[in-house]
């Protein structure tokens, strides 16, 4: 028996990384403050500067690659889309031509506007992404339960996450069994879609019947017994420093918002 592992439950769960070991709520407050602040500021220099920080934090937290993969996809899809859309619309502000693409003139003003919008779209999405990449779902639910969210809600959230993983696994199994029965499943998109439909039936049936059985099985584990729960896996509650840090970010956000409103009134 790995007693070191067993004993690890006796103290607060730590992974030895400053960012990861912050209480989920602290991380959440920081990420959301920063994400919202990019919307408030809406300037590409500010927004993209934070995006660079996100990369840095993700890398320091040991999930740089995972974060980068999703973020870069967002960057390309959202970024490209908005930039092109901006070039098509809002003709009246366009004066400076940057370059011409097969006779289609690209304007600097539209480009800057697009960059500003991009910066807060990605600034906010990146902050959310960073939070979920560096915080386990069970830790998030733990901190919510500590705030009084019910055990049932938390279970439903966590088990739907697992259900999605399971469903994907089952659908692969069903697809493979169909393939072995000679049904075409590979090839172009239409073939794939055609092959997918017959899997929906068994997939859903399986999901429903196992949900029913699972809820009985959870009942057998005293799930609905109305007593105060014990948590063998505990996170260190927000320390004074963390509270201060969170407060600082919220105050900064409010200050930015106030400044922004003031500026727009003065204009």
């Amino acid at each position: 028996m790995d007693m070191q592992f067993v004993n690890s439950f006796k103290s607060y769960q730590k992974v030895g990384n400053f960012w990861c070991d912050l209480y989920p709520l602290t991380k959440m407050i920081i990420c959301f403050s920063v994400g919202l602040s990019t919307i408030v500021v809406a300037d590409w220099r500010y927004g993209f500067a934070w995006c660079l920080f996100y990369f840095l934090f993700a890398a320091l937290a040991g999930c740089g690659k995972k974060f980068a993969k999703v973020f870069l996809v967002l960057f390309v899809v959202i970024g490209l889309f908005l930039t092109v859309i901006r070039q098509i619309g809002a003709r009246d502000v366009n004066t400076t031509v940057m370059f011409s693409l097969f006779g289609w003139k690209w304007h600097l003003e539209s480009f800057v506007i697009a960059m500003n919008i991009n910066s807060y779209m990605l600034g906010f999405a990146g902050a959310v992404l960073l939070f979920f990449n560096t915080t386990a779902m069970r830790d998030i639910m733990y901190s919510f339960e500590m705030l009084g969210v019910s055990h049932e809600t938390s279970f439903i959230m966590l088990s739907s996450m697992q259900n999605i993983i399971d469903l994907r696994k089952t659908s692969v199994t069903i697809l493979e069994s169909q393939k072995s029965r000679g049904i075409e499943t590979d090839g172009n998109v239409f073939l794939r879609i055609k092959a997918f439909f017959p899997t929906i039936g068994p997939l859903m049936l399986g999901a429903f019947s196992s949900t029913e059985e699972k809820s009985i099985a959870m009942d057998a584990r005293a799930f609905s017994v109305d007593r105060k729960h014990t948590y063998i896996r505990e996170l260190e509650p927000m320390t004074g420093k963390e509270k201060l840090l969170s407060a600082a970010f919220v105050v900064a956000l409010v200050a930015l918002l106030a400044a922004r409103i003031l500026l727009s009134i003065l204009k």
Partner: protein
Amino acid sequence: MAFIELKNATYKYPYTKEPALKDVSYSFEKGKFYGIIGENGGGKTTLCNLMRGLIPHFYLGKLTGEAIIDGVDVREWDTAEISAQIGYVFQNPFTQISGIKETVFEEVAMGLENLGVPKDEILDRVCQVCRQLKIEDLIKNNPNELSGGQRQRVAFASIIVMDPETLIIDEPTSQLDPEGTEDVFEIIHTLKGRGKTLVLVEHKIDLIAEYCDEILVMQHGSIAASGPTKKILSDLSVLDKGAMLPGAAIFGHEMQRAGKPLREIPITVDEAAALVAERGKAEWQSRLKTRALATPTGLRRWRTLTSPYSPASGWRLWGRTAPARPPA
């Protein structure tokens, strides 16, 4: 006192025509070990569901007759309260994993967390159960990625760690190899030693014969036969009721057919061995007697052998003597 009492219980699952239980009456006593056997679809699982209050609380459908758990009608029980009293290990190990815990250790601990047991006690109890079930090496694994046999052990551990007074166990060894099956039966046996009431559905009839106090044979939703293990499992008529006989009992019947009957039909290997030895000894003794009686010395010797004690001379065994106790 009867802990669970069924009186003419009849139950029909929703949207089905035939009842899954028909007029079932039986009383289950505290501290006893009951085995439920019978063919597939005979109603074994349904009977368990009723004894655990899942019928009628979870499975709707139509229940008539009475099912009384610890003196209270099952309809009046609060399901959460029954779950703390009666542990239930389900037939399907794949739906018993919560799916919300990342390690086997936490999975096994979940029931105790829900019951609010202090953390240190949880850690101790989980360690102990994991050792018993030989899943120590799995405690850090993800429970969602276990094999069928491993899941079955984890599911079993997750229930027995809660240490309920009564345990209903539905085919706990279907995914296990012979070694795993032995482990599970050993644990069930120690649970019985600790005074737990046990109800076990199992197909491995030799093990049932060895451990259970009473047997119920379920067929087409009714109890086709019931009573003390020895009585039920030594009777050939069980074969007509969709159940099997232990190897030892079949051996006993074969001996009878061969004209060399044992004193009784054995149901376990140990019993069979003892009965065979007994039969052998009787044969040997009668043969020796016939030969010994042929001569006068032989007769005396036979007497010496068979009655080793005489008040006058004390113990005489195989020609040697030990003095009788001197009169007080």
